[in-house]
Structures are given as C-alpha cells and as structure tokens.
C-alpha cells in the first residue's frame, strides 16, 4: 500500500517538476509547481510528517505560489514568450554537470543502505504536531525568534524594492 502510494506520488512530483522546468507558459508552470508541492506534501504524510505536510500545502501551495501567480498577472507575463526559452546560454553544460553530480551522489546515498523504516515512535507520539510544536518552542525557540526578524527584513525589503521612486 505505502509502496504504491510512494510510486504514484513520486511519479506525480517528478513529472510535474519536469513540466515546471520545461513548459513555456508561466501560468502552467505555476500550476505544475503547485502540483509538485502537493505531491511532496503527500510524501511527507507517508513519512509521518503530517504537520510539515499541512504547512507545505498552506504556505507553499497556498501562499507562495499565489504570490508567483500575482506577479505573473501583475506584469501579465502570461503572454510573454521569451525566445529560446527553455535553453540558451551554456545550459546543456549545466545539465550535463548535474547529471555527473547525480551519478556521483547515487553511490554515496547508497551508503545509507536499505534500512527498514524504524517505528516512528518519537516523532508520532502523542502526535506529530505535538512533537514538532514542543521542539519548536523549546529547543528551537531561538531560531524561531530569529526567523521573525528574517521575515520582517524580507517584508521591509519587499516594500522598499518595489516602492516607486518619488
């Protein structure tokens, strides 16, 4: 059962990621991106990370991608078709290199072996959300606070970057 789900979701994710990279029409890119997100969220659930999966859906598929959508609409890039996109430059070289990297990574990753999943006791009892929340607000309190600063900075930044020069 789990295996089946994994392959289905994995297929969806990879396929839509492919589309994100290759399809020319921005709107479709966004939609496929959202699809990738959803796929990932599914995989997260398979991995007993329900909370993260939810956040994934809400923050990513919800907020972030909508932001993209806004921008595309705002600048109505949808009609815009850039010549020779995808492609151009020395892209093939990059891709080639990434293939090499991947080829080298696979044996490395193989190091982790085909270990059977441990029983996810720690991360699910009493419930994943509880565990995450507890960790987040005890051990990781400081980063959490710093993150707020980060977001604030990003906010101000976004404001002054797009502010019209008056």
């Amino acid at each position, binding site marked *: 059962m789990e295996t089946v789900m994994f392959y289905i979701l994995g297929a969806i994710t990879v396929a839509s990621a492919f589309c994100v990279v290759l399809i020319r029409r921005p709107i479709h890119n966004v939609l496929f991106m959202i699809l990738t997100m959803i796929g990932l969220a599914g995989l997260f659930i398979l991995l007993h990370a329900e909370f993260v999966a939810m956040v994934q859906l809400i923050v*990513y598929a919800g907020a972030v991608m909508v932001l993209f959508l806004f921008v595309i609409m705002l600048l109505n890039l949808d009609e815009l078709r850039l010549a*020779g996109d995808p492609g151009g430059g020395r892209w093939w070289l990059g891709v080639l290199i990434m293939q090499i990297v991947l080829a080298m990574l696979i044996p490395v990753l193989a190091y982790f072996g085909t270990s059977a999943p441990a029983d996810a006791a720690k991360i699910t009892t009493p419930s994943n959300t509880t565990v995450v929340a507890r*960790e987040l607000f005890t051990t990781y309190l400081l980063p959490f606070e710093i993150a707020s600063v980060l977001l604030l900075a990003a906010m101000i930044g976004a404001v002054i970057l797009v502010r019209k020069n008056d």
Partner: protein
Amino acid sequence: MVTLQHYLLLSAILFVLGVTGVMVRRNLVIVLMSLELMLNAVNLTFIAFSRYLDSVEGQVFVLFVMVVAAAEVAVGLAIAVSIYRQTGSINVNDINVMKW
C-alpha cells in the same frame, strides 16, 4: 517496500531538476520557481531522514527552510518586478549591464 534510498533518490532527482530549471530557463520568475524546487528537494531529504532516524529535528529544520524560501521568493519577486519596471524585460540573460 520503500526504503530510505527511494526518498533520497527522489529528492536528488528533484534537486537536479531544480538546478536544471535554473540553468535552462530565461524567465526570471521561473528561475525563482526552480530555486524553490531545489529547496523542496532538500526538504524531502530532511523529512526522509527524520523519519528514518526517528528524530524530529529534520522536520523543524524544514519549517525554517520554508520560512526562508518564502522570504526569498518575496524579495526575489520584488526585485523582479522593479527590474521589469525599469528594463521592461524579465529575461535573465538581458540582465548583464555589469560584466568583466
């Protein structure tokens, strides 16, 4: 049955796809998306590890990655918009006033 390697491989593929996106796409917005893709791939790795190590640290880390990603997207898009306003182009390859 699904092992850790499956997930790692999947994420690696996603990561590579993200990089490919950055390398091949000219549309700035989509380049940003590809960056997101890379980050997501990393997220998957983290989650997989956290599952197989049975430690929640990875999941927490992912949350932070998401925060950062969101922030980067916000700023990135802002820059994209202002550049588009000034140059009327969203093509990454046009952005090369400064070189050498």
